[in-house]
Each structure stands twice: as structure tokens, then as C-alpha cells.
């Protein structure tokens, strides 16, 4: 996907690429709105550009805290 807002044709093509070939026209409309939701979410997400190594998530116990 480009950084610019994709056209309806591009989104219909993308739906087919990802295997969503059984969507009705109304569901294609939902798919187009979903692209906006994901785009907005990506903009909102705080980002970390540091090069620090990232160990996996773990939970610490009461005793360890």
C-alpha cells in the first residue's frame, strides 16, 4: 500500500490479494472504512525509534518486585 490514501479500485484489488474474495459490495464498503480505521490507529500509536535490544515480554512476581 502507498502512503497516500488508496482508491476504491486499489482497495478492491488489495482485498482480492489477501483472499477476501467473497465480500459483498456492502462489505467492500466496510473494508474501505477499515483501511481508514487502521490508518488512524497507526498514526496514533506511539513509536520507539531507539536501537536498544528488546527482550521478550515477561511478568515479574510479587517476590521479584
Amino acid at each position: 500500500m502507498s502512503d497516500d490514501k488508496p482508491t476504491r479500485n486499489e482497495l478492491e484489488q488489495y482485498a482480492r490479494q489477501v483472499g477476501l474474495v467473497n465480500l459483498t459490495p456492502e462489505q467492500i464498503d466496510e473494508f474501505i472504512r477499515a483501511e481508514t480505521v487502521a490508518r488512524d490507529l497507526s498514526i496514533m500509536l506511539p513509536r520507539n525509534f531507539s536501537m536498544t535490544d528488546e527482550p521478550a515480554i515477561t511478568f515479574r512476581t510479587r517476590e521479584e518486585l
Partner: protein
Amino acid sequence: MITADLAWLTLAQAAVLIRDRELSPVEYVEALYARSDAYDNQLQSYLRTTRDIAISEAKQAEQEISEGSYRGPLHGIPYGLKDIIDYAGVPTTAHSKILEHNVPDRDATVTTRLREAGGVLMGKMATHEFAIGGPSFDLPWPPARNPWDRNYFTGGSSSGSGAAVAAGFIPAALGSDTGGSVRNPASLCGLVGMKPTYGRVSRAGVVPLSFTLDTVGPLTRTVEDNAIVLNMIAGPDPRDSASAQFTPPDFTTDLWKGMQGLRVGVIRHFYTRDMEAHPDVTQAVEEAVTLIGGLGAQVSEMQIEPLDAYASCNRTILLSEAYAVHERWLKERPSDYGASLRQRLLPGAFIRAVDYVQATRLRRRLMQQFDEAMRDFDVAITVSSMDPPGRIEDATEMARTYPRQARVPFNVIGCPALVLPVGFTESGLPLSMQIVGRAFDEPTVYRAAHAYEQATDWTARRPPLH
């Protein structure tokens, strides 16, 4: 004892009566079914009752207890399962046409544990479709309704579990919580709901929504009952790769230690700055905070990251993982989903890998920050829902209020979070607060909640079913 009295027994009270052979599990089950037969046509909390199983399990419990083989406080106790949790031979539909004919051949681990404890399955409870996406009116079954006023939302996604416990149909039910789905219905139905630490309770045999966020927890009418149920379902499980590999403590041990000396942090910015809660909610929670201080806790304000950071982190992870769960059905059977769920799942097709990675990095930072903040506190308090229950058929109000909540942060960071009632609106709808602990420190959360509960009478109120 008449039916209404049996309906409002706490689990702990019923357990003592059953143990002492003053209450027959069979009569208990029959009384509770009589109540749900009378009222559940208004609430639709059950997707399916399991009468044959319940009577059989109750008879077995009665027989064993009469022979002196009492298993413990769940022996002969009725419960419900959110219909994403497997009980072998009983359909698990996830309240969806997609799984309408799905019959598991094996119990979920939590089900096995409840069965081994002598629990009595009363039925499978309504949920939002696949534990997200409701309330929906285009599914094979209607949505559950709030016993305090059936025109209002139960909260979700463990909607039937909340409605049935609040209505006195069962003393306890299990739900799941990925972004607040135990705590939301518990909040809006006036119950106690616990989201345990991630990994504390097995999810094996539970239909997944988001692998790294999903938890299973109990909904009950009292704090003690909640701790009793968690005692039965918690613990390591080789069937769940995220299961914590150490034996849990007895969650009832600290219940009576009181509030004295506890260091309580109030995460006030969640409901005054990051979002502005409804005045009824703010007032009820602030009154609770004042009471908690009066009970001997050291109360001060606590600052963590704003709600937005948690919300975007949770949504990015949840949408990515949920799309992975549902990709095949979205390709093959998109029209078999309700519109609400389909619309919530489809953004997952657009989440970029880099965003998922960034959300995971953010998650780790939020966990570290919360751990550091909690060095000065034993528990934290904040709101659960920003608003009282909304009208279930008002789509605009549902859309406005659904994301206005402070539950998601504790799914992101994985720590235990419990909700309990702190009052009612003028029209009699429940209000709730949230008590949060360090990872794997459910005992202190229960201790604080129990001390507050003992000093108030909110959990003793009953919804006006007619």
C-alpha cells in the same frame, strides 16, 4: 428455604449449607432454574441451559457429600460458562453462526477444574460474538440485557455471565477478558469481576480472540465468592503455553486483613484528564477513595502513561491477533458474521507488521513504567467504565460509550484488575470502580476489595426483576 432466598445465597453461604447437608444441590439447581425460567425471557442471559448435565452433576454431588466425600467449596455449586469455553459434548458457539454447530469433544482446562471441584454446569451464557463486537441484533441469538433495567446494556463481552449472576440465576460464572470483557459486564451489572494476571488461568479450550491479551476470570456477587472461584481455576497448565509455571496461593487467605496500612495509588488522570468521566461515576469513585482512606489506607495520587497510549497499543495487538484467528472465516464466510464483528475485524487486514512490532515495544515500556510506579503502592484504584450503562438499542450511545473505559491498560500490562460496585445512579443503575495490583498479586487486590465491600452495602442490593 424459598426460591428467592436460594437465588441470593452467596457462593460461600451455599457451600456451607451444602457441606453441612442443610441444602440439597439438586433442590438448589431446581430453584435456580425455576427463577431463570421465570425471568430469562426478559434477559436472554442463557444461550443454552444444560439441565440434564446440571441435575446429573448435582445428584452426584449430593451422593458424594452424603457419603462423606466433600470436595470443597465448589462442590454442588451451580455455575455458568461464557459460550466460548468448552464443555465436552455441549456446543460452543461463541454466539456466532460461524460456530453454530461446533461441539467440542474435550473440556477447557478451566471446565475440567470446575468439574473436578464438584461444580454444576447450569448452561452456556450469551456473549458478544467471538467475545468482541456487540451488542448485536443480527446474530442467531439476541443479546443479553441488564437485570437492573432490561432497556440497558449489560456490558460485554461476557454479557450473559454478568446478567445471569446479577439476576440471581447462578452465583458465579466464568467470562473472558481481552480488553475488559469480564470487568465491563461486572461493572454495568453491579458485580465483582476479576481479570487475573495474564498466565494465571489457562485459556486452553477457550475460543481465542487475541493470544497475548486473553485471560479468563470469574464474575460473582461478592469478593469472597470471586476468590473462591479463582482458587479453583488458577494454576499451571501444559495445554496453554502462556500459563505461568508456579502454583498459585490461596486467594482467600488475605481477605480479612483489612485496609489498614495498604498504600493505595489513585490513577485520577484516567478519568479527569485523559477522559472526563460522567459526574455520577467520578463522584462514586471519589467517595470510595475517601472511604478507603478512612479505613486506614495511605492514599495518594499515581501517574502513569495517558489512556490513549494503552488504547492504541491494545487495539493494534488485538486487531492483528484477532485477524489471524478469523482470517480463514473472513475469506470463506464473511456474511456469516454479524456486521458489528466483521467491521471490527476487517481493520486487521491493514495493520502493518511494523505497527505490531511497535505496539509490542510500547507494551513492554508500559509494563516497566507500571512496575516502577507500583513500587510505591500496594494497589491502584481508578474507574472502570467512564459512563453508567447506556441504552442497548441506542446505537449512537453504544458507539460513544463503548471505548470510554479504563480497563484496557491492565490487559496491555497483564496485571490483575478487579471491579466492584461503588454505588448506583438515581435511576438505579450500577456504578463501579477498579482495583489493580502488581502482576500475580491477586491476594492484595482481593484484600483491598473485600475491606471496601465490608464497609459498604452495594453488593447486597438486588435488581428489580418482575
